[in-house]
C-alpha cells in the first residue's frame, strides 16, 4: 500500500502586528496533485508559500508534511550570486553537474551565457537561470511563486510542459500565478 499523502494544511492563519492577513486556510495535497494558490495582490500568497516551504512560521494552525519529503522552491528572489558567472552558480548549487543541465540550458537558450556574470544577464535570463534548479530537481515537492513572471511565451510553454511531466512522475506542485498554467490544479483562495 503506497502512501500517497504529501502535505496537509490545517487552519493556517497569519497576522502581522495584530492585523490578520489570512486565516482558516485548509487543503491537502497528494502525490501527482498540484495546488494553485489564488488571491489578489497583497493577499498573502508569497507568505503562504513560504510557510509551506518552512521559511516562515504561521501565526496559527499547522502544516503537516511527510518527514522524508524533499522540497525545491523558486521564490521572488533568484538565489544567484551577482558577481559569479552562470556556470559557477550552477556548480555551486552542488547537486548537479554542468553536463546534466545541458539539455535545459539549450532549451532555455542559456548555453552561450555560461561565462557571463549573473549581474550582466537580463531579468528574464536570470529568472530562467533560477528555474534551473526546478528543471534539475529530484525532490518530491515543488514550490513555485509566480514562476512565469518575466518569461517569454516559448519558455512559459516549455516550463508548463515540464511541470506536467513532473506531475505524471508523481511529484507534487504548489504554486501561485496570475497566469493560468493549465495544470488541472486544486484551487485555494486567499
Amino acid at each position: 500500500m503506497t502512501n500517497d499523502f504529501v502535505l496537509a494544511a490545517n487552519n493556517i492563519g497569519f497576522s502581522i502586528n495584530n492585523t490578520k492577513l489570512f486565516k482558516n486556510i485548509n487543503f491537502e495535497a497528494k502525490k501527482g496533485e498540484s495546488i494553485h494558490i489564488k488571491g489578489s495582490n497583497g493577499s498573502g500568497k508569497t507568505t503562504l508559500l513560504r510557510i509551506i516551504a518552512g521559511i516562515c512560521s504561521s501565526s496559527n494552525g499547522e502544516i503537516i508534511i511527510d518527514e522524508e519529503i524533499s522540497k525545491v522552491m523558486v521564490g521572488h528572489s533568484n538565489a544567484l550570486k551577482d558577481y559569479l558567472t552562470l556556470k559557477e552558480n550552477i556548480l555551486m548549487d552542488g547537486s548537479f553537474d554542468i553536463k546534466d543541465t545541458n539539455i535545459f540550458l539549450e532549451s532555455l537558450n542559456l548555453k552561450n551565457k555560461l561565462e557571463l556574470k549573473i549581474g550582466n544577464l537580463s531579468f528574464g535570463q536570470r529568472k530562467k537561470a533560477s528555474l534551473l534548479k526546478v528543471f534539475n530537481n529530484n525532490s518530491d515537492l515543488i514550490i513555485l511563486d509566480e514562476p512565469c513572471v518575466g518569461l517569454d511565451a516559448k519558455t512559459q510553454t516549455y516550463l508548463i510542459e515540464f511541470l506536467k511531466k513532473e506531475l505524471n512522475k508523481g511529484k507534487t506542485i504548489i504554486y501561485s500565478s496570475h497566469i493560468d498554467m493549465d495544470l488541472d490544479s486544486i484551487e485555494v483562495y486567499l
Partner: protein
Amino acid sequence: MKVLLQIELFKLFKKIRSWLGPVLIFTLIIIAYPLTVEYSTSELAKSFYSILWLGALMTIMFSTEDIFLEDYLDGTMDQYIVNNISLPLIVFIKIFVYWLLIGVPIGILSFIFALVFTSNFESSLLIGVISLVVNYIYFAVFSFGNSLSLNKGSLLSSLVCLPLVLPILITLGKFITALEYALNFYSYIILLLGVLSIIITIIPFLISFILKAHLD
C-alpha cells in the same frame, strides 16, 4: 560539510573587495601610524600595540558589514532552509571563512609589524597568535551584531556590540604589559582561548535563531 566550506570559501574569495579591502585598510593604518608621531622609537613603541589592536578591531567591525545581508537579500538564505541545511552550520562556516580570509592575514601582518617594531621574534609570534584568536572573537561578536540589524543593513548593531568586546581589549592590554615585563602571560592566552571556545559554540546557534526570526 566540506562541500559547504568549499562553496562559502569560493564565494568570499571571488568577492575580492570584501576581503582584500579590510586587509589593506589594516595595513594602511599601521603604516600610517608612525607618520602621526614625532619620529623617535620610544614614542612609537608606547602606543604601537594599542593601534595594532584597535586597528584590527575596527577593520573587522566594518568588514562584517554584509556577512549575512547578501544571502538574506538574494534568497540564498531561504534556499538553505528549504534544502534542510543546518543554519548554525552555515553560520559557523561563514564566520570561519571570513576569519580565514581576513582574520588570518591580519594576524600574520600583526606578527610582521610587531617584529618590525620590537625586533623580538618570540613576543611577535605570541602577538600574532593572540591576534588570530582575538580576531575570531571579533568576527563572532560583530556578526552577531550584524545579524540583529539585518533588515536595515547598517552598522547599528555592530556598534552596539562594541561594548561587548571591551573586556577583550582590556585583557590584551594586560597581556602586553605581562609580555613587556616578562611576567606569566600564559594565563591571558588561556583566558582568551577559553572565551574563544565558548564563543565558537554559542554564537552559531544564537545567530541562527536570530536569522530564522528575521525570515519569519
